[in-house]
């Protein structure tokens, strides 16, 4: 393929036409797939998965030091046994957070065009003062358990990811899973991928859609961070308001001791004030769940950005290959016709120190021809890779967008439901308190 055609091709790839014309069924074609389930059906349809418990363990770490860590119980059960009425006990195994991380890294490298579901946060972030930042804190562990289960369910319901053998083994193979993962050799790819994603490079003809998408992922990340920060502050202050009311309970009780007529009213009102103060704990625990939903999409935005960056990288490599080919062809032309069109040091030195012999020129030409053939092949494969990536990625991006819109809308609605519940509780408490206050004198 000639250089100019490649450039045309690249110009074309900006338009909508090139992308997403292929089929979306990747199960057969994808060499990474070792399908363990029925074709076209995500794993979750045939298998029930849950992360049901968490436990503390102690053991020796890599540098033989004692450490305390938490493990999570993954339970799986084939769906058909349940529907058949056979109450089979679920299969189960314990995994710790680092193994989940390993699984996710493997998926990221193996499926670079997929927006891979994120894990729950490694360390507690956007914490308001009462919420513990300690990884060992039971509330944190509980929220992490839910987050890990959510991660597994998302992967298991993904049409592409759920078919991966390593994922299946993660759920079912107790011993030696780590070795299997490492054997895939994904680590090497992981390192180069990480390097590439962090490198700065400039794509000459960026795909507008991906550029917009990258900007969107940045905006989403920024706005959700802001929201989480503000929300944490508000939670802190709400906590303060409610808890101060607890003091009313105490003082009312003490005061009621010296009041004859008002004593009873004060005492019972005081109990309601205590109840009011205590109610904030449940309210904020529910709100933390909303924060977790936002956090998931905070981390999803990072995954989205990674997909865009990977696309940029592929595009860049294609451009480099194409550019290299163009320059090699130019060199061949110059060598063949003897004209020097571009300035080069070699050209200058040969002018100064004399031209090459025809034999030398012939040798050079031969090498160049070889390189050009290789280069053309490279451009062809790079192009194909780019096309395929664009196609596959855009399918998953569409899927992700729809999922995001649905999930976030549900999250907003559940936030409103929480507010309503809080208001109703408030009305009830103050109504009760008012009754007590009303009885205080006549």
């Amino acid at each position, binding site marked *: 393929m000639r250089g100019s055609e490649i450039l045309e091709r690249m110009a074309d790839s900006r338009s909508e036409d090139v992308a997403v014309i292929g089929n979306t069924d990747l199960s057969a074609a994808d060499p990474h797939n070792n399908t363990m389930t029925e074709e076209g059906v995500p794993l979750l349809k045939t298998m029930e998965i849950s992360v049901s418990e968490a436990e503390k363990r102690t053991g020796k770490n890599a540098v033989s030091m004692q450490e305390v860590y938490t493990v999570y119980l993954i339970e799986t059960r084939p769906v058909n046994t349940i529907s058949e009425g056979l109450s089979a006990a679920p299969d189960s195994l314990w995994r710790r957070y680092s193994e989940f991380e390993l699984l996710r890294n493997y998926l990221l490298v193996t499926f670079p065009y997929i927006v891979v579901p994120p894990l729950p946060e490694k360390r507690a972030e956007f914490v308001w003062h009462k919420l513990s930042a300690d990884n060992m804190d039971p509330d944190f562990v509980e929220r992490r358990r839910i987050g890990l289960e959510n991660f597994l369910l998302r992967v298991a319901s993904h049409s592409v990811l759920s078919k991966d053998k390593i994922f299946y083994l993660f759920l079912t193979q107790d011993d030696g899973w780590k070795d299997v993962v490492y054997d895939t050799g994904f680590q090497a790819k992981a390192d180069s991928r990480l390097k590439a994603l962090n490198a700065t490079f400039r794509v000459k003809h960026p795909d507008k859609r991906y550029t917009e998408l990258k900007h*969107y992922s940045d*905006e*989403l990340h920024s*706005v*959700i961070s*802001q*929201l989480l920060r*503000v*929300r944490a*502050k*508000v939670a*802190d*202050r*709400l906590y*303060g*308001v409610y808890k*101060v*009311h607890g*003091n*009313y309970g105490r*003082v009312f009780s*003490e*005061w009621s*001791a*010296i*009041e004859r*007529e*008002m004593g009873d*009213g004060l005492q019972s*009102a005081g109990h309601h004030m205590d109840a009011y103060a205590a109610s904030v704990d449940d309210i904020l625990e529910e709100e933390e769940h909303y924060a977790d939903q936002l956090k998931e999409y905070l981390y999803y935005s990072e995954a989205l950005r990674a997909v865009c960056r990977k696309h940029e990288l592929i595009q860049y490599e294609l451009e480099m290959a194409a550019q290299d080919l163009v320059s090699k062809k130019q060199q061949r032309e110059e060598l063949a016709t003897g004209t020097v069109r571009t300035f080069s040091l070699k050209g200058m030195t040969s002018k100064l120190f004399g031209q090459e012999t025809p034999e030398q020129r012939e040798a050079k030409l031969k090498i160049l021809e070889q390189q050009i053939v290789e280069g053309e092949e490279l451009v062809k494969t790079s192009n194909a890779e780019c096309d395929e990536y664009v196609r596959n990625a855009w399918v998953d991006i569409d899927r992700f967008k729809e999922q995001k*819109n649905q999930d*976030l*809308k549900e999250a*907003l*609605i559940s*936030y*409103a*439901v929480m*507010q*309503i519940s809080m*208001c*109703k509780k*408030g*009305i009830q408490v*103050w*109504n009760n*308190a*008012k009754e007590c*206050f*009303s009885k*205080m*004198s006549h």
Partner: protein
Amino acid sequence: MESESTSSSAPVNGNLAQTVDDLSKHMLELDEDDDLEVFSKDAMLTDASTFSASMPASPASMINQYKHEDQDIKDVFITVDCPENHVTSIETFVTYRVITKTTRSEFDSSEYEVRRRYQDFLWLKGKLEEAHPTLIINPLPEKFVMKGMMERFNDDFIETRRKALHKFVNRIADHPILSFNEDFKVFLTAQAWELASHKKQGPGLLSRMGETVRAVAASVRGVQNRPEEFTAMNDYVETFSQKMGMLDKIAQRIVKEQKEYLEGMKECGPVYTLWSGSEDQLVEPLKAIAGCIDNCCKVTEEQVAGLSENQVPILHEYVLCAETLKAVLRRRDNIQAEYESKVDALASKKAEKENLKEEIGRLEDKLECANSTLKVDWERWKRNMQADVRSAFVDMADTNMNYYEKCLAIWESFLTSQKTEVHVEKDTDS
């Protein structure tokens, strides 16, 4: 029921003695009307230590009088409003309009309008305390605000003060004894220059100093045999004062925390709006949430204002009231101490017996009167306190219920709007 005023129009030394005389007259008149037992001085002389309610007559008759008075129809109506700034070359101050409407015969007219400044209210309170040392007079709002003098001219401060002053004069008007005080009448009716000249009258500096000296001496000496009920009152006031102080702090703290919560909430809405700018499908719900949060902020502002204006000042007033109660109990103690010192003097001295006896008799009357008025006024104060505290907390409950009800409506309307969206989408799909 007649309404003889306890007049103190002429400048006389020893207001207390005068008051006792007036009240005695009062009681005697009552006794003639209602056939109650006559207060007998001689019967009191022998036993200075027991002053219980079961003792001869006069406390009971006082209580009866109070009860009758309480059932009277209110016949003095006062409003305090229209604060205005006055600027003179020396100072700037605020005056309040005081309008009085009354059917009482002591008043020449049925309606009065005057302008008074805070200092005038202070003066009135002082005169009332002088005339009735063991009556409980609810406190005035504080003279200075902690934060600084400029606060004096802040609108909210002036409004809070106006409300407190309005309450202050109305409580006096509702009081069966205080409302007939001559200084009170002058306060309500005199023009500015009349009031100024009236203020200049009254016991001279020397006599007031004498009063103070006697009071100090008495308080140093201390009370020997304080009746159980007054000790009980003292204990009550100690605890009451403490608890009120705490409630005042709690109420103010809640307002502070709620304000901070509001500040935080105000930042949320804009973030949701910002977010909506990046989205397409989610634009509508995000903007709707931002709107809800902004509306909730407005409701929260109303709630904070409600608590600050209604509940907090009442609790604060009763913190000051506790101090008033302590002062009243101290003054009662001082009267008893003075009486006791004279009794001791009688026991030790042989000469001047007659003079001492007479003085003791006078002091005994004074003490008796002080005790009985205090007891009755104590009950009246307690009733008022209970009513005030009840209303303050009922208001607080109402304010909070109102707040939650409004927020509930806001969020429910959001839910309804989102459900509609879902239905519309379904229609377009099919």
